[in-house]
């Protein structure tokens, strides 16, 4: 405790009319001026502005303030701002207490008198607490100059390249056998119609060849420990059953596989087929074959034909190795970027579209594979082929349907998936391009062409003769034995219900959080927003940060995005990670727990409770007797304070949230105003 008497300055922010419109700031200023220890009480239009901060700084210097209360917005918003202001004057930044009179007062209450009274109480509670606050020391720890990037789609690829280019080590972990993600599956990209593979594959090759990137495909992070600057991750490298160094990627094994063209290819969305030993797609990186352990006869049945596995026999490099085992690798990194991507909406969940029953009802992603030159039909738009890939017909009337699995509360996906309007426009264009005589109709609710060049593209597509009908189809059913599908829909602009006949229906399926989202949350302790995607630290100002320091988000795992937005966010995440790595040091929580060793009875309840293993019992000499008392490792402590609630005597307390600092707040706020 400092010997000097507390001299408190109270600053009430108007926040324009955000606060002052509801709370009588003059009255609060007056009220605060009479509180114990308060020597100055002022209000100002924007405390966070430069002049606002100067007001505080001048008072600290001129009036010798040693405690500051800012009554304004949430401390989650501007606490760092005002702490910095205090520090600039040489005052310890932890002598600041904020009263949240905006988010939790003026914005939520209408009754001006009651809001003012509540604001006064909140300020009074802050004064009661600030009197007891202590100066805290900010400490720093070293940052391991390496980053772990999870997910090898375009987001992960871009983030990894940026960090590696800056000269730091990157571990890029991808679950599937190749990097590329969903972008690799796309044919053209809207609105510019660049070939997706042409712009992506060079980057894929770059990540594989970059000296600073350790690419770990067919691998998964199993556990993560530690804290910002010092994470320790365990990565499982799954057995490919193919010797990575020996495989030349020639593909003879796959051609000889007994299950050749018998297994639906994930990459081709099940339209094309693959073998049990496979390269996901021709441009896969790394160009190394992988055996599917769930399908391979040798691995599932222990036996493949009479002569044994043909892949092994045919491989001239002798790369096939059925005895390969998973490997566990431990890596140390300072920062983590989560870029785990999305799943497309499972169209089977919308029974009324008959996706499961009718092969000519397909998803947008399936259509991408169908129309792609690298796809199973070589880019020819032929549907209704048999299992061997033969037969089929060119569709004449094609319907595209917007918002399948998006903007749909009944499916639990209330959000807009942001890409479907444009990818359907692009696909409609591609059909017109390849089948000029086809009749193409797009059924939409709203067209959201908000991006750069989007509206122009939408305009172009309409002028190409593609019909846009406003109405979201209610059901699709098959009529008779031919290809005809009936799309039941109302043209809502005319108010006419109609039965539109089509021979191909493409569903504009939306984007969803990945199926394994829960596992990733448990692994990295992330939060979800209501839509199920990962929650950023702040929706506007910290869109790539998470609530866990040192862990950043990139791409669609945070919410649906198109490619440019994904790349921009990946670069943002890389830059955030680089800031930490480049600085080499990071501040750790100053508001950690501390033990009063004289009061500690050494029961160890705090040790049991601490989720970070930050507390241990150590022997100490108490008046000549050796006793056990709790001791806090400040680098590991996050300041949650669970220990303090477990401790029966109050011997362990988190700084700035001590019992003796909270009880005065309760004493102020608990009083009923009669």
């Amino acid at each position, binding site marked *: 405790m400092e010997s000097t008497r507390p001299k408190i300055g109270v600053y009430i922010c108007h926040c324009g009319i955000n606060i002052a419109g509801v709370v009588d700031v003059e009255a609060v200023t007056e009220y605060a001026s009479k509180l114990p220890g308060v020597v100055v009480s002022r209000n100002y239009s924007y405390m966070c502005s430069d002049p606002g901060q100067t007001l505080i700084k001048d008072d600290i210097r001129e009036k010798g303030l040693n405690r500051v209360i800012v009554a304004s917005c949430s401390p989650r918003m501007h606490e760092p701002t005002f702490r910095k202001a205090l520090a600039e004057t040489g005052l310890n930044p932890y002598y600041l207490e904020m009263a949240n009179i905006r988010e939790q007062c003026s914005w939520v209450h209408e009754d001006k008198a009651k809001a003012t009274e509540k604001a006064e109480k909140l300020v009074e509670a802050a004064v009661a607490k600030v009197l007891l606050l202590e100066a805290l020391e900010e400490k720093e720890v070293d940052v391991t100059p390496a980053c772990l990037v999870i997910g090898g789609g375009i987001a992960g690829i871009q983030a990894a390249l940026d960090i590696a280019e800056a000269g730091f080590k990157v571990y890029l972990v991808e679950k599937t056998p190749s990097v590329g993600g969903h972008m690799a599956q796309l044919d053209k990209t809207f609105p510019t119609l660049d070939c997706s593979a042409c712009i992506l594959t060079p980057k894929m090759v770059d990540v594989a060849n970059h000296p600073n990137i350790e690419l770990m495909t067919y691998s998964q992070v199993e556990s993560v420990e530690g804290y910002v600057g010092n994470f320790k991750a365990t990565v499982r490298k799954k057995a490919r059953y193919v010797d990575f160094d020996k495989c030349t990627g020639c593909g003879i094994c796959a051609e000889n596989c007994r299950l050749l063209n018998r297994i639906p290819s994930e990459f081709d969305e099940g339209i094309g087929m693959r073998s049990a030993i496979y390269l996901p797609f021709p441009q896969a990186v790394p160009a190394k074959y992988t055996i599917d352990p769930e399908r391979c006869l040798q691995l599932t049945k222990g036996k493949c034909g009479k002569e044994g596995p043909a892949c092994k026999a045919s491989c001239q490099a002798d790369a096939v190795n059925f005895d390969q085992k998973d490997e566990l690798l431990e890596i140390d990194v300072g920062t983590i970027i989560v870029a785990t991507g999305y799943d497309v909406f499972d169209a089977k969940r919308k*029974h*009324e579209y*008959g996706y499961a029953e009718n092969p000519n009802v397909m998803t947008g992603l399936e259509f991408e594979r169908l129309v792609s030159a690298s796809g199973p039909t070589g880019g020819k738009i032929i549907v209704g082929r048999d299992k061997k890939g033969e037969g089929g017909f060119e569709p004449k009337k094609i319907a595209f349907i917007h*918002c399948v699995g998006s*903007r*749909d*509360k*009944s*499916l639990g996906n209330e959000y807009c998936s942001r890409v479907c309007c444009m990818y359907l426009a692009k696909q409609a264009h591609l059909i017109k391009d390849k089948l000029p005589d086809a009749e193409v109709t797009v059924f939409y*609710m709203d067209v959201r062409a908000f991006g750069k060049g989007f509206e122009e593209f939408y305009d172009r597509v309409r002028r190409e003769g593609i019909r846009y009908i*406003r*109405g*979201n*189809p*209610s*059901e699709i*059913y*098959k*009529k008779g034995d031919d290809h005809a599908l009936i799309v*039941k*829909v*109302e*043209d*809502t602009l005319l*108010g006419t*219900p109609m*039965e539109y006949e089509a021979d191909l229906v493409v569903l504009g399926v939306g984007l969803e959080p990945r199926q394994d989202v829960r596992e990733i949350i448990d692994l990295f302790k992330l939060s979800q927003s209501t839509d199920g995607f990962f929650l950023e630290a702040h929706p506007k100002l910290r869109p790539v940060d998470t609530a866990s320091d040192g862990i950043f988000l990139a791409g669609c795992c945070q919410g649906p995005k198109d490619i440019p937005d994904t790349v921009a966010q990946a670069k943002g995440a890389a830059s955030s990670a680089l800031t930490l790595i480049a600085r080499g040091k990071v501040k750790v929580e100053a508001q950690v727990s501390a033990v009063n060793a004289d009061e500690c009875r050494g029961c160890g309840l705090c040790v049991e409770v601490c989720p970070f293993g930050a507390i241990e019992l150590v022997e100490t000499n108490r008046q000549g007797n050796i006793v056990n008392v709790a001791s806090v490792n400040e680098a590991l402590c996050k300041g949650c304070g669970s220990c303090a609630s477990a401790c029966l005597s109050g011997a362990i307390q988190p700084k700035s949230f001590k019992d003796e600092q909270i009880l005065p707040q309760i004493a102020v706020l608990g009083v009923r105003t009669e």
Partner: protein
Amino acid sequence: MGVEQGTFVQKYDLLGCIQCGRCTGGCPVTSRTELNVRRIVYESIDDEKLEDLSNKPEIWDCTTCNTCAIRCPKGLEPFEVLIGLRSMKAEEGDIEPTARDALESMFNNGNPWGKPAAKRTDWMSDIPGVKKVRILSEGEKADVLVHVCCTAAYDPRIIPLAKNLVRVLEAAGVDYGFIGNEEKHCGSEARRLGEEGLFEYFDEENTELFSKYEVNRIVTISPHCLNTFKNEYQNLNIPVMHYTQLVAELIEDGKIDLKGEIPKKVVYHDPCYLGKKNLVFDEPRYILNKINGIELAEFERSKERSLCCEGGGGKMWVESSSKAERLAELRIADAKNLGAEIVAVACPFCLLTLEDAMKVKGFEEEMRVADILELLGEVI
């Protein structure tokens, strides 16, 4: 007549509507009537327009099949708006005489068919192999309380369903009982004809009636009774199930021996109130598959996509304005194309409407419409 400001908007959450058109797109009756439910939802936001809307004859064309509600991406129930509009008329008594008579009879006789309450148990005589049907007295215990429903108690075409259910229950050794002459209309059709007050009366009366017995569950013959007991009654704390659910359970437990054989191609028509509304899809099919000889076909539009027969929503008492081909006839034609010899249903209304359509189509020689209970009656 007055509607309080904003009542409709709040009650039906109308501001949630984004006018996507899925309700109308899926509506089975739009193809043959003027009804455009999307537009009515849109216009209902304006209180001033409600009276005009309530005067539109097409609001009575809705069969309350629930399709619009399950398709709505915002979780709204557009057909309830139509019921709301109907109730404005019902309050004034300004509705079709047939519907008014039905409502009056519900109140006076406890059934919409204008039949005396005292004759409600007349169907119980002459059931092959059953001497006396058990009627529960107050406080009596039973595992299953069977609610017959007005149509099965009075309509000569539907009475066999009730009889067959008794035979099935007897054969399976179920501890069951009936209410007897005190049994009343479930209120489902009263509500759908817009008589909210009458519905509330049945809710209270029946809840009290059921509580007089100590039963574990209530079984209904009609999916309409099932729905209203299960989803619309305020304080009924006894589990309610459809007979197909009970029978499927009995077959699974090996309590029913299905001896006979029906060597026919059968297609099952999902009743809206059993399927779309209460998601009972599998049990009826399970039962049919267990009957020897049956070859089960599926309509292209089945389960969640099933086409309504137009028997529900009070349509039994309100004639449609449209002269276009009825949906039931479409359904029969589809069945014919599938080569079905029997159209199986699990709802008295479906049975009546589909059978009628079959006769209109003149397919009596080649096919028949039968409730699953009738088929069961043939094989036990």
